[in-house]
């Protein structure tokens, strides 16, 4: 297959208008996360990859996050594909959840040539603000289909709080 064909097709991930907006929204909201490969990460050098957009120094990915709540708990959903569950670290701060870890790059075979390398690899850290105080000791988390689902009981159960702000 011709390299020109591949290059032509893979220049952009934003091919439809609605998709472009979705990505902009997600990246503005905080889903755009930088991935920093470490010393032993094994990522190919730029010369070994035919993807013009590839940079071995760091990558970016949209790790979508959602927060749902009801009277008793918060449920946070974070998209973190391709991890092993014991490689994901979750920390609960007073008003935020921090999800971090390292997505490893595994070389398929020593003979292969990387034509496109768009997925992000390396260490990442995503902070998600929480709308209510929670009890971290009673939290539980599950990882399935590349999505981390964390359930956090509220410290002060009650309806979701709203704050009205006067405009002077």
């Amino acid at each position, binding site marked *: *297959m011709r390299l020109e064909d591949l290059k032509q097709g893979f220049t952009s991930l934003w091919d*439809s208008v609605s*998709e472009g907006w979705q990505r902009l929204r*997600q990246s503005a909201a905080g889903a755009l996360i930088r991935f920093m490969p470490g010393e032993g990460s094994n990522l190919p050098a730029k010369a070994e990859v035919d993807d013009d957009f590839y940079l071995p120094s760091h990558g970016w990915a949209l790790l979508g996050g959602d927060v749902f709540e009801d009277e008793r708990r918060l449920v946070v959903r974070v998209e973190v594909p391709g*991890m092993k569950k014991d490689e994901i670290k979750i920390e609960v701060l007073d008003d935020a959840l921090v999800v971090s870890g390292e997505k490893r790059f595994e070389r398929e075979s020593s003979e292969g*040539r990387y034509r496109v390398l768009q*997925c992000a690899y390396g260490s990442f850290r995503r902070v998600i603000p929480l709308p209510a105080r929670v009890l971290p000791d009673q939290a539980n988390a599950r990882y399935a289909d*590349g999505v981390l689902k964390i359930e956090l009981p509220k410290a002060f159960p009650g309806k979701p709080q709203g704050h009205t702000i006067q405009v002077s």
Partner: protein
Amino acid sequence: MSEAGNVTKQVDAAREQAAMMPPVDVVEDPTGITLFADLPGVPKDKLDLHVEGDSLTIEGEVSVDMPEGMEASYVEVSLPRYRRVFTLSKELDPSKVTAELAQGVLKLRIPKAAHAQPRRIEIRAG
């Protein structure tokens, strides 16, 4: 293999059902192509792979299963569908595609057709 880039096709697709394009890694070796795609939230039964002629479509629907009665306080993921279409070059044999889906990462292996694989020619001593 290349990406299907026809503009009218895409406008129609966007109108039918908006979808996100997942990021992919494509590795080529002498015997075929390996493709990885990030499809977080797509379970096996919501993943659709189909080949039509020389076109390979990867489509997946994200299942966000939240218990009843939960209010969305902060939502970033609101386009719960992934789609990406590829044009496979003639060297590839789409009938032999194999796929694995683990923790939201799809791994596809598309071997090159037998005639396109590197062959060692035996040289017989005369």
